[in-house]
Structure formats: C-alpha cells, structure tokens
C-alpha cells in the first residue's frame, strides 16, 4: 500500500496519440472517500486521463498509482515492466467504470449484466451474486426492471444498471466518464441522485462531468483541465465562484 494512503496518485502523466499530445503532465491526488470532479472543455484530455486510471489507455510518461500499485506496470529498480493482460485485468477488478454511452451488454437482462463479472471473473457462487445484484438494482431504484433487456430501458435506467454493474465487483474506486452527457435532460437527475448517494456512502469517485451543480454540491475537490494540463484545482465552491486562472474564468462564464 502507498504510504501516502491515496487511492489515486498521478505524477506528471503524459499521453500522446501519434503526434497529438493529449495529456501534458497531469498531477492528481485522490484520498479515500473523496469525490473528485474533473471539468473542462471537450478535447481537454479529461476523459483520456480517466481512461488512463484503469489502463484502457497506456500512459507514455510519468507515474500513475491506484491504491499504491503502479497502473499497467511493475517497477524493478529503475526499470518498468509492462504487466500481462491477466495482471491488468486483475487491477481493473478494483476499479469500477461507468461510460457516457452506458455500454450495457444488450444480449443480457439487467440482472445478467450485473451478475456477469462477479460470476465469470471472480467465480463467486451464483446464489450469492444474485442476491447482491438484486440488492444493487434495488439500490439504484430498478428492482422492477431486473428482467428487462437494455433496449427496453430508458437512458437513465440503463446508466443506473451500468452503475450497479460496476458496483457488483465491489470496487475501491469508481470512475465516471461523463455519465449524464448522453441523457435527455429530464433523466439526468435520477442518475445524479444515485451518484450522490454513492458519495454519501463513502465511495471514492473520480467524475468527469459537465454538471456544475453536482460538482459544487457533491465534490470534495474540483479539477479544471484545459489543453492536456490541470489549470486549476481546489474546493469546488471556491473554484466555481472565484476562479483564479483566466482560462477557468472564460470556461465557467460559458457554462454557468
């Protein structure tokens, strides 16, 4: 375990897609139980950074730890060794992720979506998983939709199933990649309510979002990213009401 006790620790994380320099040295620290909201204009690299945290993207420079373990690599002396697929998969089990486009498995019912990973990856007994999955679906307010296929659910309902699916692996950290951006306005609230409850229950969360109200109310810290850099970070209320950097001021004047 990391002596600093941080769930996520990023030091000078760089990421390039060919010639495109997407992340230009990101530093971030997330303490247990903390909700960190990441905001910024599209193309600022915030989603890419989130995807680096569970190694869906490989970082090109810097260091990134989750729960004290380097993400995607093993360090021996000065050398880094890439982890095998199996080891990366094991790291990801500790990290839940919720996508903008939900990405539910369309050929499975809501219940099967939630049960799939615990049953197949962690090989838990079906009975226990089923019980837990039903509780989770109840917790996100979908107790009556357990037999429904994703195509029969609204966007908000699908996203809540997706959250339950991620929670079923009992992760130590939850990543949210613009979880409400693909939703109709009237469905945003139900998803944010679930996330708010999750924060109250003490889950460590990193949330890429455009919902300033959520960031202000639920976030413990707010990170503003622009052009691959962290421009400003601090307590959400302070950053949102009294931004220091001109780029933050400019961005907030457009979205608030």
């Amino acid at each position: 375990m990391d002596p600093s006790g941080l769930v996520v620790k990023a030091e000078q994380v760089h990421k390039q897609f060919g010639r495109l320099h997407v992340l230009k040295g990101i530093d971030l620290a997330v303490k247990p139980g903390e909700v960190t909201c990441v905001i910024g204009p599209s193309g600022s690299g915030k989603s890419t950074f989130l995807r680096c945290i569970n190694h869906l993207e490989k970082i090109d420079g810097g260091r990134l730890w989750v729960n004290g373990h380097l993400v995607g690599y093993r360090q021996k002396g000065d050398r880094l060794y890439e982890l095998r697929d199996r080891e990366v998969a094991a790291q990801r089990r500790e990290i839940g992720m919720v996508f903008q486009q939900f990405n539910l498995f369309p050929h499975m019912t809501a219940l099967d979506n939630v049960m799939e990973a615990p049953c197949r990856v962690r090989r838990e007994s079906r009975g226990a998983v089923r019980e837990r999955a039903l509780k989770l679906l109840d917790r996100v307010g979908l107790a009556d939709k357990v037999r429904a296929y994703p195509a029969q659910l609204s966007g908000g309902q699908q996203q809540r199933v997706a959250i339950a699916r991620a929670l079923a692996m009992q992760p130590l950290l939850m990543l949210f990649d613009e979880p409400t951006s693909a939703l109709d306005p009237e469905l945003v609230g139900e998803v944010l309510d679930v996330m708010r409850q999750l924060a109250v229950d003490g889950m460590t969360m990193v949330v890429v979002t455009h919902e300033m109200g959520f960031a202000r109310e639920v976030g413990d810290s707010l990170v503003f990213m622009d052009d691959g850099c962290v421009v400003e970070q601090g307590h959400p209320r302070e950053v949102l009401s009294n931004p220091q950097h001109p780029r933050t001021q400019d961005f907030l004047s457009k979205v608030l």
Partner: protein
Amino acid sequence: MTQLDEPGQARPEPIRAVPVRHPGRWLAVAVLALLTAMFVHMLITNKAFQWSFIIDNAFRPPVIEGVRTTVLLTVFAMIIGIALGIVFAVMRLSSNPILRGAAWFYTWFFRAVPRLVLAILFGNMAILYQKVRFGFPFDRQLSDLLGIDINGTIFDIDARTFLSGFMAGLLALALSEGAYMAEIVRAGILSVNPGQDEAAQALGMSRVLTMRRIVLPQAMRVIVPPTGNETIAMLKDTSLVAFVPVTNELFFRLEAIGSRTFQVFPMLVAACIWYLLLTSVLLVGQYFIERYFARGTASGPAGMRLRVLGGAGGEH
C-alpha cells in the same frame, strides 16, 4: 384545427376515405396465375417427367443412404468450417502479425481454389502419402507457422485409408468452408460496438472471456444469416464429392439410377426435389437460431419482441 384541441369537444367521426386502387397488382396476379397454370399443366401432361418412375425410385434405400451421407457431410463440414472460421477470424484480428499473416494466407488459399478442384485434389492425396509420412499438406506448414499442432492425431493413421472417400471430401469441403466462415465471423466481430469490449475489460474480464461472453454472442446476429446461406450452399456442394470419388452421396446415387435405367431426366427432377426438401428443413432451423440470437434487440422477429416486452413489464 385549434377548435379540436379544446377540451370538451366531441371526437370527430373516423375518416372513411376511398382507398387507393392498385390495378397493377391485379394485372400482376392475373399474369402470374396464368404462368403458374401453364407450368403446372406442363408438369402434369409432359410424359418426360415420368412421375410414377420418380416416386418409385427417389425414395429407395440406396437414395436414402445418399441423403444420409449428404446430410452428414453438410453437418460435419459446417461444424468444422465454423470452428475454423472463428479461430481464423480471431487470428486475423489479433495484434500478433504472424497469426494475422497465417490467417490471411489460409483464407487466401482456400478461397482461391475451387471446391471441385479441392475435392479431386484431396481424393488423390493418398497417392502422395505412400511416399510421405505426414498427414496432409498445409497442416505441417501451418503447424510450423503457428507452433501448434493442428489435427495432430491424423499423423498416426495410415494416410491411404484415412483419406479415402468420405474423409477426403469432408476435409476439402470443411477447409474451404473455414476460409469463407473466417471472413463472415470477422465481419460479425467488427460489427460489435468497441464500447462493449471496453466495458468488459473495465470489469476485469480476460480477452478470451470477453470474446466468448460479450463479443461473439452479439456478433452472431450478423454471422447467422450468411452462415445460413453457407449451409445451403454446402448442402448443394456436397454433390462435388462425387469426384473424390464418394459413391454413396445423394446426387451420385440418383444419377446412377438415371444412367442405369436410361431415365436421366426424371432422376434430375428427383434430385431437385430432394435438395428443395433438405434446404427447407435448414431454413426452419435458421429461423429459430436467428430468433435466439436476436434476444434483447429491437430487430428481433415481431413475435419475440412482443413476448419479451410483455414479460418485462411496462412502465406503469
């Protein structure tokens, strides 16, 4: 119009409009009915058909044995072909350039050589293997290329007896089918949203598990219809193994009766009838398989959609 929106207003009478007439449809019906009548009349009155001869001979034991061989060849060739297709499609999409190259080579070769030529080639393989101690070609090269044994067990069996008749025909058809299925499966895998793969990975699923549980079941919706086509094509292509030669195959048997009795044409008609019957059975099977893999999607057959919606319970 605004009046209608006011509450309390009585609902207007339902519209009773004169529907559009389609005289062209009636004309088409008349023409088609006439043509059908002429055709049926020809079937009945033309003596060359020899219907009683067809009925007497098309269902005799040797023909039934031919049907059995044809069906077995189709089933086994498709099972091996689909299995090979999945393996080569996954290899084609692998990040390993050697696996990719090998899979490309396989599909290139077996799509380039006609099935008829393959059938004759495999039928004559036994001549080669009196001198050579190994199984059959490409196995060894593929094995070297991949570092794994494909069909390793074959090496133990005497090549001449093994590659005679049925097995030679089956291998020719199955290997050829594998190449076509590889392309069909590849198209299916590519049709699945990359977000599915990411979601599975984010849950900590391995690549094999992701492929088996998440990607392939969704790819099946794209894979099944062309595979139905392939199966029907395979059913008919089994007649090619007569050149291996395989002498207990359906078409060979019917033609043999035709030649022996100098009634060639009636036996050709019998062949048509048999292939029509067998294909119809396959179509029924395809319907059910498609219905199974369409679960959870809006494009499933209507009956299925209604059933699923009913079972899931509505909004209210």
